[in-house]
């Protein structure tokens, strides 16, 4: 009888021990999973900041390189061409006294040099938007579209918004300007459009850039899936990632497309110091 009692207690204690183990396992799984997710989130934030930093560095290098090339073109080639033009002017005067045919060749050569000088100036301005740095986004976009209209059979309208756009940080202004350039170039190259509308909007939180065209429109996902065709769009997204901006593409009623870019007025990227480069490469978790 006593043995049976002891056996009952042994069974009860064993059962309770197993139950405690079961509850411990369930609690452990719950809390461990939660902790690992928190860690994973933190690591992914670090990775995101890290890649943003890398991207920022790459774009800064690109701008620096553009500036250097523009400087070289302006200072070296531009100067040399101006001197060549002066020399040709002097030579032209002396040839004019000798023969008509030589004078014609000289005038043709002079006009070619002048044209080359204009091309070099244009390339220099395109490489570094000096108007953007001096006068801001509105004037830079205005200048850009006027130059485009000169050479193309295209109508480009620009609405700079109801209020005067205050100057933003150099990075934000350059980002919006480069995105506008890319979107307009895309519309000209791929959309077969005759009209492009650009508008700038601003509220307390965002600067909005809207570029619409009356072209054939496009499927964003299809373009992104393509190899080289999506590079421009990826470039836009990369630039926006640095300033925490977003872009949305939609089709307009007349068959064209609209791109709305929103960039925060005070982006986190400007305020916070980016995370340092990570010394190790983390093993990716398979999801």
């Amino acid at each position, binding site marked *: 009888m006593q043995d049976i009692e002891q056996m009952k207690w042994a069974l009860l204690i064993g059962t309770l021990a197993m139950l405690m183990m079961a509850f411990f396992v369930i609690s452990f799984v719950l809390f461990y999973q939660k902790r690992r997710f928190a860690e994973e989130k933190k690591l992914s934030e670090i990775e995101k900041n890290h890649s943003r930093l890398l991207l920022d560095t790459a774009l800064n290098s690109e701008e620096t390189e553009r500036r250097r090339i523009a400087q070289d073109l302006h200072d070296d080639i531009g100067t040399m061409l101006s001197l060549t033009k002066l020399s040709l002017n002097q030579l032209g005067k002396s040839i004019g006294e000798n023969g008509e045919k030589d004078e014609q060749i000289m005038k043709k050569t002079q006009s070619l040099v002048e044209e080359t000088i204009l091309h070099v100036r244009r390339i220099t301005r395109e490489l570094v938007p000096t108007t953007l740095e001096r006068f801001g986004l509105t004037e830079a976009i205005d200048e850009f579209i006027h130059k485009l209209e000169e050479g193309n059979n295209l109508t480009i309208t620009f609405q700079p918004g109801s209020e005067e756009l205050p100057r933003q940080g150099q990075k934000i202004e350059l980002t919006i300007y480069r995105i506008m350039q890319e979107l307009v170039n895309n519309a000209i190259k791929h959309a077969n459009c005759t009209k492009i509308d650009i508008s700038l909007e601003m509220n307390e939180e965002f600067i909005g850039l809207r570029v619409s065209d009356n072209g054939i429109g496009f499927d964003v996902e299809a373009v992104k899936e393509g190899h080289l065709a999506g590079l421009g769009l990826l470039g836009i997204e990369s630039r926006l990632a640095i300033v925490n901006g977003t872009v949305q593409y939609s089709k307009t009623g007349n068959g064209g497309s609209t791109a709305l870019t929103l960039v925060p007025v005070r982006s986190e990227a400007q305020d916070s110091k980016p995370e340092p480069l990570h010394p190790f490469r983390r093993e990716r*978790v398979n999801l």
Partner: protein
Amino acid sequence: MLDQYLFYFRHDILANITVIVTLLPLILIMYRKAYVDPSFRLLLIFLILRFIIDLMMFHFATYRMNNLMLYNLSIIVRYALLSGMFYFKFESSTLQKLIIPVTVTFIIFTLWDVWNCNPAFNNFNEHRIVKYAVTVEALLMIFWTLTYFYELIRSLKIPSLFTFPFFWICSGLLVYYSGLSFVSPALHYAVRWESMFEIGFLDRILYIFDIVIMLLFSLGIWVFSARYYARH
């Protein structure tokens, strides 16, 4: 007849509540359309079969007939269907491949255990609960559950386990089989037509585990979303 059923129901309320409580997850599976998930479809089949077997056992018990043969049969059904749920949940193909042969082996083992524990097989009145099969079943199910938890933690696919239906199903299984693993060998000696010894409150604990597993199953089914399942 109804009086007899009611009399028996009142005679052992806790044991009979376990029969009724099966209806809760059963109705919830239908209501939440959880059967779209193959694992939950197996759970639905298990609950239906369990409810039928329980009703038959209730009927036999009411008329003072030995119903342990049905209990032994329910072990095979229970293991085959509940472990089958893991077949659809495991991501590792090795584990998936392991489940079917283990189930077949277990069924053969249980049949042998039934045969071994009941030498007079045709004498239903003297039937006894199997000696080892329930413990083996409990150990196997604990193994599958712990392996699934390990896979779940490793994959990091589920952001919140509180809202993950199969987590609660597994929790129910773990609690139920943890409780069952120790008590089940004693049932072979205790639960028989003429008991060798009374295990007293310990056989009540089993009924409590039965209710707990059904409540945890119900919780899991309640957080199931057919729309979420379709999206994933």
